[in-house]
């Protein structure tokens, strides 16, 4: 397979994790502009685990997800008492705080005569696991998509489960859900933790794919995009955010005729869809219609 295509597909797969992460919070009715913070935590944690501690990739990705999930729970406990705009601003403030902390974070060890590890604003170079272990780009792409399929299957199962229904119930009307005996705060913190872990897996994969991360990568642009993917693709199914990613990176970016104008088209697309289709292309009605057609 062409290297460029492998690169684009890898990017689509990795950014899908952040998009799914934002989507999970959207299900519970909360808009987060801060999922890039958990992506960053996952990237640094997993990168440190392989590059500095010599962990295997699987353990490092798990560690990245666990660290990001734990951070999301810790942030979720105080912030999920806020709603709407206040919650969105709180998540954005947290994400910027994390980014600035990584600007100051230095933790380097001498590996093979070279200093390796996070070095503040200058970033974290030398996350060379895939090169040291002779993992090809194609093998890494397979790993990304296997993890993504597992995440999608988990989402499908979740949406059919009692917990998934509870997420949507809270998203529709948190007060009504609480009156029906749902422990809203606890469920929201659980959703935040799962969303953080998902973003953390994406971050871990990203760090190992590029071999280099720096704090600038994790600014608000990534958070806005991850949120926009769900809003474009649709909130009716977990495939919605993936559709958003494919439209943005797969179509607008890869079709060279849009190059340079992509951000304008993307912004316009979000604005138009928010007006004409506020819950995205694959909204609940579209999903219901498509599933009826599929059953026939």
């Amino acid at each position, binding site marked *: 397979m062409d290297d460029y295509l492998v690169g684009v597909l890898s990017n689509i797969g990795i950014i899908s994790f952040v998009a799914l992460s934002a989507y999970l919070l959207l299900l519970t009715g909360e808009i987060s502009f801060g999922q890039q913070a958990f992506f960053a935590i996952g990237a640094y944690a997993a990168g440190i685990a392989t590059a500095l501690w010599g962990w295997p*990739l699987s353990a490092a990705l798990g560690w990245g997800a666990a660290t990001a999930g734990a951070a999301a729970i810790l942030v979720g406990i105080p912030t999920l008492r806020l709603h709407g705009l206040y919650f969105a601003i709180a998540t954005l403030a947290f994400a910027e705080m994390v980014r600035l902390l990584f600007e100051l974070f230095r933790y380097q060890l001498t590996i093979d005569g070279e200093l390796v590890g996070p070095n503040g604003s200058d970033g974290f170079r030398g996350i060379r696991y895939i090169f040291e272990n002779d993992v090809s780009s194609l093998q890494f792409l397979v*790993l990304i998509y296997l993890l993504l399929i*597992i995440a999608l299957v988990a989402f499908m199962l979740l949406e059919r489960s009692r917990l998934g229904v509870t997420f949507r119930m809270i998203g529709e009307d948190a007060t009504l859900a609480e009156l029906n005996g749902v422990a809203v705060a606890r469920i929201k913190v659980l959703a935040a933790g799962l969303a953080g872990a998902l973003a953390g897996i994406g971050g871990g994969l990203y760090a190992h794919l590029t071999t280099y991360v720096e704090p600038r990568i994790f600014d608000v642009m990534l958070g806005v995009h991850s949120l926009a993917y769900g809003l474009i693709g649709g909130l009716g199914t977990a495939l919605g955010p993936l559709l958003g990613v494919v439209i943005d990176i797969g179509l607008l970016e890869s079709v060279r005729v849009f190059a340079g104008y992509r951000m304008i088209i993307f912004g316009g697309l979000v604005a138009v869809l928010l007006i004409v289709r506020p819950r995205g292309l694959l909204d609940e009605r579209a999903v219901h219609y498509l599933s009826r057609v599929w059953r026939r």
Partner: protein
Amino acid sequence: MLRLLFAGLIAAVCLAEAAAAQSMRAKADVECKPAGELLHYDCVIKLMNARTSEPLAGVTLMVGADMPSMPMMHNVRPVKAAPGADSGIYQARLVLEMHGDWAVQLNLSGPVRDRVVANIRFDPDRATPVVPSRARPGHKH
């Protein structure tokens, strides 16, 4: 279905962790300058062994770029660098989508497999290496 997926995942991870051979590390000096056309830059890349600083000749070098401020969202199609006159010197022309800070990715294959990232600020009239800690206002010493 779920079991099958987990089995596949474990197999992929095992495959990825199977060979644990230490590979050679590369480092690079990248110098770019405007090529006369808008957003076209000619880059001269000096590849070296990171440990011994000896020039790295005979590798296949693909040069791509990504914007750190918009990761994964700008995919500059990687171009193959041509070997220069001297050992370890390669030349490539980059066609970017916009000016600004780019992380130039050097993907080495062949006798040496590695990826080296160089941060470069591409302005209309020049291209200069970026050290983020020195590039920030208020961080000048």
